[in-house]
Protein backbone atom coordinates (compact mmCIF):
# COMPACT_ATOMS: atom_id res chain seq x y z
CA UNK A 1 0.00 0.00 0.00
CA UNK A 2 2.78 2.42 1.03
CA UNK A 3 4.73 1.60 -2.15
CA UNK A 4 1.69 2.37 -4.27
CA UNK A 5 1.31 5.76 -2.62
CA UNK A 6 5.03 6.45 -2.95
CA UNK A 7 4.94 5.47 -6.62
CA UNK A 8 1.89 7.68 -7.25
CA UNK A 9 3.53 10.60 -5.44
CA UNK A 10 6.80 10.24 -7.32
CA UNK A 11 4.92 10.07 -10.65
CA UNK A 12 2.90 13.16 -9.72
CA UNK A 13 6.09 15.00 -8.73
CA UNK A 14 7.80 14.02 -12.00
CA UNK A 15 4.80 15.19 -14.03
CA UNK A 16 4.71 18.45 -12.09
CA UNK A 17 8.43 19.09 -12.60
CA UNK A 18 8.27 18.30 -16.31
CA UNK A 19 5.44 20.73 -17.03
CA UNK A 20 6.11 23.79 -19.12
CA UNK A 21 4.20 27.06 -18.87
CA UNK A 22 1.57 27.47 -21.59
CA UNK A 23 2.24 30.83 -23.18
CA UNK A 24 -0.89 30.92 -25.30
CA UNK A 25 -2.82 34.11 -24.72
CA UNK A 26 -2.50 37.10 -22.42
CA UNK A 27 -5.92 36.83 -20.82
CA UNK A 28 -7.88 39.72 -19.42
CA UNK A 29 -10.84 40.00 -17.08
CA UNK A 30 -11.93 37.16 -14.82
CA UNK A 31 -9.98 34.37 -16.61
CA UNK A 32 -6.81 36.47 -16.61
CA UNK A 33 -7.16 37.39 -12.94
CA UNK A 34 -7.98 33.82 -11.95
CA UNK A 35 -5.07 32.40 -13.90
CA UNK A 36 -2.53 34.88 -12.54
CA UNK A 37 -3.86 34.30 -9.01
CA UNK A 38 -3.64 30.54 -9.36
CA UNK A 39 -0.15 30.68 -10.82
CA UNK A 40 1.34 33.28 -8.45
CA UNK A 41 1.90 30.95 -5.47
CA UNK A 42 2.93 28.08 -7.75
CA UNK A 43 5.43 29.85 -9.99
CA UNK A 44 7.36 31.38 -7.10
CA UNK A 45 9.39 28.42 -5.85
CA UNK A 46 10.02 30.09 -2.47
CA UNK A 47 6.26 30.43 -1.91
CA UNK A 48 5.55 26.95 -3.19
CA UNK A 49 8.00 25.08 -0.97
CA UNK A 50 7.06 27.10 2.11
CA UNK A 51 3.33 26.39 1.65
CA UNK A 52 3.95 22.69 1.13
CA UNK A 53 6.23 22.67 4.20
CA UNK A 54 3.47 24.29 6.28
CA UNK A 55 1.14 21.43 5.32
CA UNK A 56 3.74 18.75 6.04
CA UNK A 57 4.63 20.24 9.42
CA UNK A 58 0.94 20.49 10.32
CA UNK A 59 0.55 16.79 9.48
CA UNK A 60 3.62 15.92 11.56
CA UNK A 61 2.29 17.88 14.53
CA UNK A 62 -1.10 16.15 14.26
CA UNK A 63 -4.33 17.46 15.80
CA UNK A 64 -5.21 20.27 16.35
CA UNK A 65 -2.54 21.77 14.02
CA UNK A 66 -3.55 19.58 11.08
CA UNK A 67 -7.09 21.01 11.00
CA UNK A 68 -6.57 24.48 12.48
CA UNK A 69 -3.96 25.20 9.83
CA UNK A 70 -6.13 25.01 6.67
CA UNK A 71 -8.88 27.01 8.39
CA UNK A 72 -6.85 29.88 9.83
CA UNK A 73 -3.80 30.17 7.56
CA UNK A 74 -5.63 31.86 4.63
CA UNK A 75 -7.21 34.40 7.00
CA UNK A 76 -3.86 35.31 8.57
CA UNK A 77 -2.31 35.42 5.10
CA UNK A 78 -5.08 37.78 3.99
CA UNK A 79 -4.08 40.21 6.78
CA UNK A 80 -0.66 40.37 5.11
CA UNK A 81 -2.46 40.67 1.77
CA UNK A 82 -4.33 43.75 3.00
CA UNK A 83 -1.03 45.31 4.11
CA UNK A 84 0.30 44.62 0.61
CA UNK A 85 -2.78 46.12 -1.03
CA UNK A 86 -2.51 49.22 1.16
CA UNK A 87 1.20 49.47 0.28
CA UNK A 88 2.24 49.27 3.93
CA UNK A 89 5.83 48.05 3.79
CA UNK A 90 7.11 45.12 5.84
CA UNK A 91 10.79 44.79 6.80
CA UNK A 92 12.85 42.66 4.39
CA UNK A 93 9.91 40.71 2.88
CA UNK A 94 11.97 38.62 0.43
CA UNK A 95 14.44 37.64 3.16
CA UNK A 96 11.67 36.59 5.56
CA UNK A 97 9.97 34.54 2.82
CA UNK A 98 13.27 32.78 2.10
CA UNK A 99 13.75 32.30 5.83
CA UNK A 100 10.28 30.76 6.08
CA UNK A 101 11.34 27.99 3.70
CA UNK A 102 14.54 27.46 5.71
CA UNK A 103 12.82 27.40 9.13
CA UNK A 104 9.84 25.29 8.05
CA UNK A 105 12.11 22.91 6.13
CA UNK A 106 14.29 22.46 9.21
CA UNK A 107 11.19 21.92 11.36
CA UNK A 108 10.03 19.16 9.01
CA UNK A 109 13.49 17.60 8.68
CA UNK A 110 14.08 17.51 12.45
CA UNK A 111 10.44 16.56 13.28
CA UNK A 112 10.39 19.59 15.58
CA UNK A 113 7.52 19.31 18.06
CA UNK A 114 6.69 22.70 19.47
CA UNK A 115 3.64 23.62 21.58
CA UNK A 116 0.72 24.41 19.29
CA UNK A 117 0.70 28.12 20.20
CA UNK A 118 4.40 28.49 19.36
CA UNK A 119 4.02 26.65 16.04
CA UNK A 120 0.96 28.78 15.20
CA UNK A 121 2.87 31.99 16.00
CA UNK A 122 5.80 31.00 13.73
CA UNK A 123 3.52 29.99 10.85
CA UNK A 124 1.35 33.11 11.40
CA UNK A 125 4.30 35.50 11.06
CA UNK A 126 5.41 33.80 7.84
CA UNK A 127 1.80 33.79 6.56
CA UNK A 128 1.65 37.58 6.89
CA UNK A 129 4.80 37.98 4.79
CA UNK A 130 3.65 35.55 2.10
CA UNK A 131 0.26 37.28 1.99
CA UNK A 132 1.96 40.65 1.67
CA UNK A 133 3.83 39.50 -1.43
CA UNK A 134 0.62 38.20 -3.03
CA UNK A 135 -1.45 41.22 -1.97
CA UNK A 136 0.99 43.68 -3.49
CA UNK A 137 0.17 42.21 -6.92
CA UNK A 138 -3.60 42.35 -6.37
CA UNK A 139 -4.49 45.95 -7.37
CA UNK A 140 -2.65 45.65 -10.70
CA UNK A 141 -4.17 42.31 -11.70
CA UNK A 142 -6.65 41.85 -14.54
CA UNK A 143 -9.50 41.24 -12.07
CA UNK A 144 -8.63 41.67 -8.37
CA UNK A 145 -11.45 39.45 -7.06
CA UNK A 146 -10.58 36.66 -9.49
CA UNK A 147 -6.90 37.04 -8.56
CA UNK A 148 -7.81 36.76 -4.86
CA UNK A 149 -9.94 33.66 -5.48
CA UNK A 150 -7.12 32.13 -7.53
CA UNK A 151 -4.28 32.69 -5.11
CA UNK A 152 -6.26 31.67 -2.02
CA UNK A 153 -7.35 28.48 -3.79
CA UNK A 154 -3.81 27.71 -4.96
CA UNK A 155 -2.41 28.29 -1.47
CA UNK A 156 -5.08 26.07 0.08
CA UNK A 157 -4.37 23.31 -2.43
CA UNK A 158 -0.63 23.55 -1.72
CA UNK A 159 -1.38 23.06 1.99
CA UNK A 160 -3.56 20.11 1.11
CA UNK A 161 -0.70 18.71 -0.96
CA UNK A 162 1.62 19.17 2.04
CA UNK A 163 -0.85 17.47 4.39
CA UNK A 164 -1.15 14.61 1.88
CA UNK A 165 2.63 14.22 1.77
CA UNK A 166 2.71 14.52 5.57
CA UNK A 167 0.37 11.55 5.88
CA UNK A 168 3.34 9.38 4.85
CA UNK A 169 4.53 9.69 8.46
CA UNK A 170 2.40 6.61 9.19
CA UNK A 171 5.12 4.47 7.65
CA UNK A 172 8.79 4.45 8.78
CA UNK A 173 10.05 4.73 5.19
CA UNK A 174 7.62 7.58 4.54
CA UNK A 175 8.89 9.42 7.59
CA UNK A 176 12.43 9.27 6.18
CA UNK A 177 11.21 10.51 2.79
CA UNK A 178 9.50 13.46 4.51
CA UNK A 179 12.60 14.30 6.52
CA UNK A 180 14.68 14.25 3.33
CA UNK A 181 12.07 16.49 1.68
CA UNK A 182 12.29 18.86 4.66
CA UNK A 183 16.06 18.97 4.31
CA UNK A 184 15.64 19.75 0.60
CA UNK A 185 13.22 22.57 1.39
CA UNK A 186 15.62 23.96 3.99
CA UNK A 187 18.45 23.77 1.43
CA UNK A 188 16.40 25.71 -1.10
CA UNK A 189 15.53 28.21 1.63
CA UNK A 190 19.27 28.63 2.29
CA UNK A 191 19.84 29.23 -1.42
CA UNK A 192 17.11 31.91 -1.60
CA UNK A 193 18.40 33.53 1.58
CA UNK A 194 21.94 33.64 0.21
CA UNK A 195 20.56 35.06 -3.03
CA UNK A 196 18.66 37.71 -1.07
CA UNK A 197 21.80 38.65 0.84
CA UNK A 198 23.69 38.97 -2.43
CA UNK A 199 26.08 36.15 -1.59
CA UNK A 200 25.22 34.40 -4.87
CA UNK A 201 23.94 35.78 -8.16
Amino acid at each position, binding site marked *: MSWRILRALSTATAIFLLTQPALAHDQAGVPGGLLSGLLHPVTGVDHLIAMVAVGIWGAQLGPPAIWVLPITFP*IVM*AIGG*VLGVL*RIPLPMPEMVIAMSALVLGLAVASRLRLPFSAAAAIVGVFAVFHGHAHGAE*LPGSANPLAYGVGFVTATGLLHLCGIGIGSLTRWPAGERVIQALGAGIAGLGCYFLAQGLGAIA
Partner: protein
Amino acid sequence: MTSKFGHLWILAAALFVQTSAAEAHIVAARLGDFYAGALHPLTDLRDIVLWTATGVLAGALGAPKGRWLIPVFPLGLLVGLSLGRIFGAASTQLADATMMLALGMLLAAAARIPTFLLCAIAFAIAVMRGAANGADLGPDTDRLLFAAGLACAGYGAITLTMALTTAFKRTKSDSSASWRTIAVRALGGWIASIGLMMAGLALAS
Protein backbone atom coordinates in the same frame (compact mmCIF):
# COMPACT_ATOMS: atom_id res chain seq x y z
CA MET B 1 -21.79 -7.19 -39.21
CA THR B 2 -20.80 -5.25 -42.36
CA SER B 3 -24.44 -4.74 -43.22
CA LYS B 4 -25.04 -3.35 -39.70
CA PHE B 5 -22.21 -0.86 -40.14
CA GLY B 6 -23.56 0.08 -43.58
CA HIS B 7 -26.97 0.84 -42.11
CA LEU B 8 -25.42 2.89 -39.33
CA TRP B 9 -23.38 4.90 -41.83
CA ILE B 10 -26.47 5.61 -43.96
CA LEU B 11 -28.44 6.62 -40.86
CA ALA B 12 -25.63 8.90 -39.66
CA ALA B 13 -25.29 10.47 -43.12
CA ALA B 14 -29.07 11.01 -43.33
CA LEU B 15 -29.12 12.66 -39.90
CA PHE B 16 -26.15 14.85 -40.84
CA VAL B 17 -27.80 16.00 -44.06
CA GLN B 18 -31.10 16.70 -42.25
CA THR B 19 -29.56 19.04 -39.66
CA SER B 20 -30.52 22.68 -39.73
CA ALA B 21 -28.88 25.70 -38.13
CA ALA B 22 -29.36 25.88 -34.35
CA GLU B 23 -31.24 28.97 -33.22
CA ALA B 24 -29.00 29.39 -30.23
CA HIS B 25 -29.22 33.09 -29.53
CA ILE B 26 -31.89 33.06 -26.86
CA VAL B 27 -31.55 36.77 -26.14
CA ALA B 28 -33.26 37.48 -29.45
CA ALA B 29 -36.08 35.04 -28.64
CA ARG B 30 -39.39 36.03 -27.03
CA LEU B 31 -38.36 35.03 -23.50
CA GLY B 32 -34.80 36.31 -23.90
CA ASP B 33 -34.98 38.65 -20.91
CA PHE B 34 -35.90 35.73 -18.63
CA TYR B 35 -32.69 33.96 -19.62
CA ALA B 36 -30.78 37.23 -19.37
CA GLY B 37 -31.99 37.58 -15.76
CA ALA B 38 -31.14 33.97 -14.95
CA LEU B 39 -27.67 34.13 -16.48
CA HIS B 40 -26.69 37.67 -15.46
CA PRO B 41 -25.43 36.64 -11.98
CA LEU B 42 -23.07 34.13 -13.58
CA THR B 43 -21.24 36.99 -15.28
CA ASP B 44 -20.17 38.56 -11.98
CA LEU B 45 -17.78 36.72 -9.67
CA ARG B 46 -19.15 38.66 -6.67
CA ASP B 47 -22.55 37.03 -7.21
CA ILE B 48 -20.99 33.59 -7.56
CA VAL B 49 -18.88 33.91 -4.38
CA LEU B 50 -21.63 35.49 -2.25
CA TRP B 51 -24.45 33.22 -3.40
CA THR B 52 -22.29 30.13 -2.92
CA ALA B 53 -21.13 31.26 0.52
CA THR B 54 -24.72 31.95 1.59
CA GLY B 55 -25.85 28.53 0.41
CA VAL B 56 -22.93 26.79 2.10
CA LEU B 57 -23.61 28.62 5.38
CA ALA B 58 -27.28 27.64 5.23
CA GLY B 59 -26.32 24.03 4.49
CA ALA B 60 -23.73 23.99 7.27
CA LEU B 61 -26.39 25.12 9.75
CA GLY B 62 -28.65 22.28 8.69
CA ALA B 63 -31.90 21.93 6.78
CA PRO B 64 -34.28 23.13 9.55
CA LYS B 65 -32.59 26.55 9.62
CA GLY B 66 -31.44 26.72 6.02
CA ARG B 67 -34.78 25.99 4.36
CA TRP B 68 -36.03 29.46 5.31
CA LEU B 69 -33.65 30.87 2.73
CA ILE B 70 -35.51 29.17 -0.12
CA PRO B 71 -38.20 31.90 -0.12
CA VAL B 72 -36.15 34.64 1.60
CA PHE B 73 -33.27 34.79 -0.87
CA PRO B 74 -35.27 35.09 -4.13
CA LEU B 75 -37.57 37.60 -2.39
CA GLY B 76 -34.55 39.69 -1.42
CA LEU B 77 -33.31 39.59 -5.01
CA LEU B 78 -36.67 40.92 -6.22
CA VAL B 79 -36.66 43.70 -3.61
CA GLY B 80 -33.11 44.61 -4.60
CA LEU B 81 -33.97 44.57 -8.28
CA SER B 82 -36.84 46.99 -7.67
CA LEU B 83 -34.40 49.27 -5.80
CA GLY B 84 -31.81 49.04 -8.58
CA ARG B 85 -33.04 52.20 -10.27
CA ILE B 86 -32.84 54.20 -7.03
CA PHE B 87 -29.31 53.14 -6.16
CA GLY B 88 -28.15 53.24 -9.77
CA ALA B 89 -24.57 52.23 -10.31
CA ALA B 90 -23.49 52.90 -6.70
CA SER B 91 -20.43 50.83 -5.86
CA THR B 92 -21.12 47.92 -3.54
CA GLN B 93 -17.51 46.76 -3.49
CA LEU B 94 -16.94 47.37 0.24
CA ALA B 95 -20.35 45.99 1.26
CA ASP B 96 -19.81 42.86 -0.87
CA ALA B 97 -16.35 42.35 0.62
CA THR B 98 -17.68 42.82 4.17
CA MET B 99 -20.41 40.27 3.53
CA MET B 100 -17.85 37.78 2.13
CA LEU B 101 -15.73 38.31 5.24
CA ALA B 102 -18.72 37.88 7.58
CA LEU B 103 -19.99 34.74 5.84
CA GLY B 104 -16.48 33.27 5.70
CA MET B 105 -15.81 33.94 9.38
CA LEU B 106 -19.15 32.41 10.39
CA LEU B 107 -18.32 29.31 8.34
CA ALA B 108 -14.73 29.08 9.58
CA ALA B 109 -15.82 29.41 13.20
CA ALA B 110 -18.69 26.92 12.65
CA ALA B 111 -20.90 29.48 14.42
CA ARG B 112 -24.42 28.29 15.27
CA ILE B 113 -26.30 31.50 14.49
CA PRO B 114 -30.07 31.79 15.04
CA THR B 115 -32.42 31.40 12.08
CA PHE B 116 -33.56 35.04 12.05
CA LEU B 117 -29.92 36.23 11.81
CA LEU B 118 -29.23 33.82 8.95
CA CYS B 119 -32.33 35.09 7.15
CA ALA B 120 -31.36 38.73 7.81
CA ILE B 121 -27.85 38.19 6.38
CA ALA B 122 -29.18 36.32 3.34
CA PHE B 123 -31.86 38.95 2.73
CA ALA B 124 -29.30 41.78 2.95
CA ILE B 125 -26.99 40.00 0.48
CA ALA B 126 -29.89 39.29 -1.88
CA VAL B 127 -31.06 42.93 -1.81
CA MET B 128 -27.53 44.18 -2.49
CA ARG B 129 -26.90 41.78 -5.36
CA GLY B 130 -30.40 42.22 -6.77
CA ALA B 131 -29.83 45.97 -6.91
CA ALA B 132 -26.42 45.46 -8.52
CA ASN B 133 -27.92 43.13 -11.15
CA GLY B 134 -30.71 45.59 -11.88
CA ALA B 135 -28.48 48.65 -12.05
CA ASP B 136 -27.36 48.16 -15.63
CA LEU B 137 -30.67 47.15 -17.19
CA GLY B 138 -31.43 48.82 -20.50
CA PRO B 139 -34.73 50.58 -21.25
CA ASP B 140 -35.69 47.80 -23.69
CA THR B 141 -35.39 45.07 -21.06
CA ASP B 142 -38.61 43.47 -19.91
CA ARG B 143 -38.13 43.91 -16.15
CA LEU B 144 -40.75 41.34 -15.24
CA LEU B 145 -39.10 38.59 -17.26
CA PHE B 146 -35.64 39.63 -16.02
CA ALA B 147 -36.88 39.57 -12.40
CA ALA B 148 -38.44 36.12 -12.90
CA GLY B 149 -35.17 34.82 -14.34
CA LEU B 150 -33.10 36.32 -11.52
CA ALA B 151 -35.42 34.97 -8.82
CA CYS B 152 -35.38 31.49 -10.38
CA ALA B 153 -31.57 31.57 -10.54
CA GLY B 154 -31.42 32.65 -6.88
CA TYR B 155 -33.83 29.91 -5.85
CA GLY B 156 -31.91 27.26 -7.79
CA ALA B 157 -28.47 28.36 -6.64
CA ILE B 158 -29.34 28.61 -2.94
CA THR B 159 -31.32 25.37 -2.88
CA LEU B 160 -28.69 23.36 -4.72
CA THR B 161 -25.71 24.73 -2.77
CA MET B 162 -27.52 24.20 0.53
CA ALA B 163 -28.58 20.66 -0.41
CA LEU B 164 -25.07 19.74 -1.56
CA THR B 165 -23.52 21.10 1.64
CA THR B 166 -26.08 19.31 3.83
CA ALA B 167 -25.47 16.05 1.97
CA PHE B 168 -21.69 16.52 2.14
CA LYS B 169 -21.71 17.18 5.89
CA ARG B 170 -24.07 14.33 6.72
CA THR B 171 -21.89 11.83 8.48
CA LYS B 172 -22.51 9.20 11.14
CA SER B 173 -20.48 11.17 13.66
CA ASP B 174 -20.98 14.88 13.06
CA SER B 175 -18.06 15.76 15.30
CA SER B 176 -16.09 18.96 14.94
CA ALA B 177 -13.01 16.90 13.99
CA SER B 178 -14.64 15.06 11.06
CA TRP B 179 -12.82 15.85 7.82
CA ARG B 180 -16.06 16.94 6.14
CA THR B 181 -16.73 19.55 8.82
CA ILE B 182 -13.12 20.72 8.55
CA ALA B 183 -13.39 20.97 4.75
CA VAL B 184 -16.46 23.21 5.04
CA ARG B 185 -14.74 25.34 7.68
CA ALA B 186 -11.59 25.57 5.52
CA LEU B 187 -13.76 26.79 2.64
CA GLY B 188 -15.06 29.43 5.04
CA GLY B 189 -11.48 30.45 5.77
CA TRP B 190 -10.85 30.86 2.04
CA ILE B 191 -13.99 32.98 1.59
CA ALA B 192 -13.13 35.13 4.61
CA SER B 193 -9.62 35.76 3.33
CA ILE B 194 -10.94 36.77 -0.11
CA GLY B 195 -13.41 39.14 1.58
CA LEU B 196 -10.71 40.61 3.79
CA MET B 197 -8.46 41.39 0.84
CA MET B 198 -11.32 42.81 -1.21
CA ALA B 199 -12.25 45.05 1.73
CA GLY B 200 -8.65 46.24 1.85
CA LEU B 201 -8.73 46.93 -1.87
CA ALA B 202 -12.04 48.83 -1.57
CA LEU B 203 -10.56 50.97 1.21
CA ALA B 204 -7.36 51.56 -0.78
CA SER B 205 -9.14 52.67 -3.97
